[in-house]
């Protein structure tokens, strides 16, 4: 199948991230959506290669097919077209029961084992900045088979030590002592998987199946592996780079801007000049 890829001047970084995120979804999967760009990405997958995916909104909409993009997961736009609209008890019970294949999440900081922080910058007991807190980030990350993080790429955010582990990666702390162990050891029968990718504004990163350590998979157009390694405080493995992140297709761009997010709530249009 030949695909009609767009030229670099036809799309913006948000388009690229949205399409990269969309391509993480496989057909027939049950996907947990957070507010923001992931909602557009999942609905894009629903309209392209994954027409049978099932969408769950954390606030309580199950198997949703919203006719208009919701602004947040509690939005009145979530309900129409869904199998059920109920509440958080259903959403989280279904997730803990093991139905969820994939979740999209965000974060302020990530370490090389996929531990993510959304709670505070600096010492938790005396923080430089208190952030939003966990929300459902650790829950979706604990329950889903795969999770994909979408993040702004700044060097300070890709750090060997996050200020606070809000959401569990592949090596996590075993309490009460706090020593690091592999996630499998801690989750027992509830182990289903963990972070599978980080899509940053620089590239797409994945995690080694054995060690759970992060490596660079693809570079966004215009970025070299060495450049991206320089953008991390930890020693990024760039030995497994598979190429460049695929650009959006013209069909995807049409769907994003004319069908899914014409109001430019999450994804701005590239100004043609």
């Amino acid at each position, binding site marked *: 199948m030949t695909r009609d890829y767009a030229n670099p001047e036809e799309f913006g970084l948000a388009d690229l991230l949205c399409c990269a995120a969309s391509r993480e979804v496989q057909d027939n999967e049950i996907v947990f959506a957070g*507010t923001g760009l992931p909602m557009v990405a999942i609905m894009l997958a629903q309209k392209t290669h994954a027409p049978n995916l099932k969408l769950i*909104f*954390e*606030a*309580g*909409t199950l198997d949703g097919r919203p006719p*208009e993009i919701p*602004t*947040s*997961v*509690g*939005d*009145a*736009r*979530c*309900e*129409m077209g869904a199998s059920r*609209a*109920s*509440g*958080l*008890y259903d959403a*989280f019970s279904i997730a*803990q029961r093991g139905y969820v294949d994939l979740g999209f999440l965000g974060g302020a900081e990530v370490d090389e084992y996929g*531990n993510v922080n959304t709670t505070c910058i600096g010492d*938790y*007991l005396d*923080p430089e*900045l*208190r*952030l*939003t*807190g*966990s*929300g*459902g*980030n*650790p*829950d979706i990350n*604990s*329950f889903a088979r795969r999770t994909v993080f979408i993040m702004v790429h700044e060097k300070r955010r890709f750090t060997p030590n996050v200020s606070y*582990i*809000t*959401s*569990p990666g592949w090596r*996590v*702390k*075993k*309490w*009460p002592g706090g020593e690091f*162990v592999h996630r499998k050891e*801690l*989750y*027992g*029968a*509830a182990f289903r998987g963990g972070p599978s990718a980080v899509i940053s504004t620089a590239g797409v990163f994945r995690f080694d199946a054995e060690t759970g350590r992060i490596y660079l998979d693809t570079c966004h157009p215009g970025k070299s592996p060495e450049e991206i390694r320089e953008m991390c405080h930890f020693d990024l493995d760039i030995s497994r780079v598979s190429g460049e992140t695929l650009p959006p297709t013209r069909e995807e761009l049409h769907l994003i801007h004319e069908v899914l997010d014409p*109001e*430019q*709530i999450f994804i*701005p249009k590239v100004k043609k000049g």
Partner: protein
Amino acid sequence: MSNSKRITLQQAAEIIKDGSSLTFSGFTIWRRPFAIVYELIRQGRKGLHLIEVNGGPQTEFLVGAGCVDIWESCWVGHELYGKYGANLSRKVGKKEILVEDYSHAEMLFRFAAAASGAPYAVTQTSLGTDIHNPAYDTLGRAGLRDGKRFPKQKYVFTDDPFFGAGPQVLVPAAKVDVAVMCVQQVGEEGTVRVAGQYYSDPEAARAADITIVMAEEVVPEEYLRRESDRNTITSFEVDYILECPFGAHPTGMFGRYDVDGAFLKDFYAKTRTQEGFDAFAKEWIFGHDHMSYLDKLGWPRMMNLRANTALNYSTGVKRGQ
């Protein structure tokens, strides 16, 4: 009998005493009981302990106004209209508030436990995170864990004793004094009908000792009982009711009105500092009652927020850039 649960906005706020523990209906920026939140601020309530499945603008207003000593939850912000809770963040920095962090699912399961009369819930979420770090037990560090108002422990780690499924975490029931709900319809006897996602409202109402329901409209019980399968909360779980149109503004209500994103953006932009918050409160809260607040917002603004009755959301609001 029929009017026995009816109270006024002022009375609703008076039921919530200094030092009460409190929870709300809704989800982030939807269906928050704002008219009562504003009235609590006007009445100068102090020492509140908020226990919320998730926070939102209501948290930010109460925290900014200095009404809250303890916030126990997982998230605060304004979704698209404000990245994080700037008032909570400021008070955390100045150590003027105690924050106890749980995960979202943990908070939900804590309410579900309280709602079913169980002392705790069991879950497998958030294992290995700093949410479970014993050094970060804020209420314990403050010496508040008396086993009465506050659970003796933040968590208990255990192993599945029945099926050998491995590590589990026990989280204490979320016992709260008062739940304040904001819904579309309540009957004269207290039956609640929520339209759209009901979020964690059934658990919140059942977990609390006292449940106050503020509705867009009080309707005849008989009307709700014609189709009882559509109702969300049982009459006798509700202690007090009141009618208050647009009571959730600036948050939204399914089928009635949208989130006032411009108002939340403005609040977020202007209340990074305490002076900013005080000025905002002076403009929008103090010296107003609910009707003069609506008057200040004005008809054009409210008409624009009003939901299309076929779609259940507004087609007039500008959401994007």
